[in-house]
């Protein structure tokens, strides 16, 4: 008999939340990295008023993806290093519930950082990043690349050079999200009407990737 699906998912999320509240390892590292990255970009690109409108959505998404790389690596490496993944696999739990739980945790932590980044960038760059549609785009985009990120990080957690392999595997796979999310954000900020198409595309690929991840995760964790 297997434990009900939803209960497993919630239990894994609760476990990740509890670990995070006690250690504050993931969110604090990501937040600090995101802050540094935003500063580095503003120095490197010497953004003036006009250039900001063009570049700011790129800054947001590159920062978010690199920050999530740090988080994904830690989150899944922890699972396999301390044997928790093996314990989860021994338990009568559906594989896709494990995926959904880990994915939700990762998306939640990255989402917190993303939501904190928006007001920060509003202040630092003087652009209104708090538009409701920007927030929606941010959350959908994060959900998308955290899905494929969770799957790939589970793979790379078993490899020798996991810190170097995760970016190499994840960055090209995350490019569809980066592309559509950055275009949508830029369109919303500049009032260009085609942002809706980009947001729909982003939503579409997020759904496709999530479905594929749910289907295939079982093969990644099987021994």
């Amino acid at each position: 008999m297997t434990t009900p699906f939803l209960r497993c998912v919630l239990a894994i999320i609760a476990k990740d939340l509890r670990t995070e509240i006690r250690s504050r390892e993931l969110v604090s590292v990501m937040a600090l990295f995101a802050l540094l990255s935003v500063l580095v970009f503003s120095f490197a690109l010497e953004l003036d008023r006009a250039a900001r409108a063009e570049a700011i959505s790129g800054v947001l998404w590159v920062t978010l993806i690199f920050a999530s790389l740090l988080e994904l690596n830690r989150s899944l490496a922890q699972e396999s290093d301390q044997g928790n993944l093996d314990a989860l696999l021994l338990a009568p739990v559906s594989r896709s519930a494990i995926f959904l739980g880990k994915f939700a945790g990762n998306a939640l932590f990255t989402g917190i950082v993303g939501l904190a980044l928006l007001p920060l960038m509003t202040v630092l760059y003087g652009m209104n990043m708090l538009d409701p549609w920007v927030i929606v785009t941010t959350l959908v985009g994060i959900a998308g690349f955290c899905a494929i990120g969770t799957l790939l990080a589970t793979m790379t957690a078993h490899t020798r050079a996991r810190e170097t392999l995760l970016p190499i595997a994840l960055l090209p796979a995350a490019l569809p999200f980066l592309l559509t999310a950055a275009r949508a954000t830029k369109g919303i900020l500049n009032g260009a009407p085609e942002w809706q198409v980009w947001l729909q595309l982003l939503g579409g690929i997020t759904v496709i990737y999530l479905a594929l991840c749910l289907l295939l995760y079982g093969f990644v964790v099987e021994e």
Partner: protein
Amino acid sequence: MPTQARLEPNPQPRLLRALTVLTAVGFLATLYLGLFAAGTDIEQGQIQRIFYIHMPSFFGAFTAFGATVLGGILYLARKQAAWDRIALAGVEVGLAFSLINLLTGAIWARPIWNTWWTWDPRLTSAAVMCLIYAAYLMLRAGIDDMSRKRNFMSVYGIFSFVSVLTTLFIIRIVPETIHPVIVGASPQNAQGSFEATSGVFMALAPSMLLWLTLMPLTLMWHRYRLETRREAIDRLKFLTLSD
């Protein structure tokens, strides 16, 4: 006294030799058709002839990457190593073909678009596709455990195919591309389209046929045999060292 470990001789099957010859002859024949038999394009001149390689090479990559998906699915279903080797062969052949596709495209774009490269949606997605499959090879090299390696790479290979489909269909989704569509209606902004006359088709059809079927399959078969050999040698090494 260590056991005598040795590799069984494994000569090429007759069919493979025949296919290899056929592919080579077919390649020369389609080159002749494209370079000499087809008429010169009125607007673009000689450079248009690169199209007879450019488009077929993408479809060759499509076949090879398709074999990767098929190999991946069948490996996950049946756990026979052969399917995983087919998937690997598909990635290597497909990656080579898509690089040919990108390079010939860049050579064509220089005189026609007046630039080697532009961040057009289709060009971008084709480049992303190459990167994803290059990452396949990196990731594969990084995993030691064989059965884990095969599992992971099957899943990754299935995923990667999304990028191939994106490249194929993006001109129908994102209409702002400047990449021409030769067969069917070109997008509004397409630059450098030309008419697909019967002469173009006469040179294109055999080339497409060759690149879709013989080229990738023959190369993949060779690569498959190489991989089988390599794994056999690894097993032998292991046996010899553990004696």
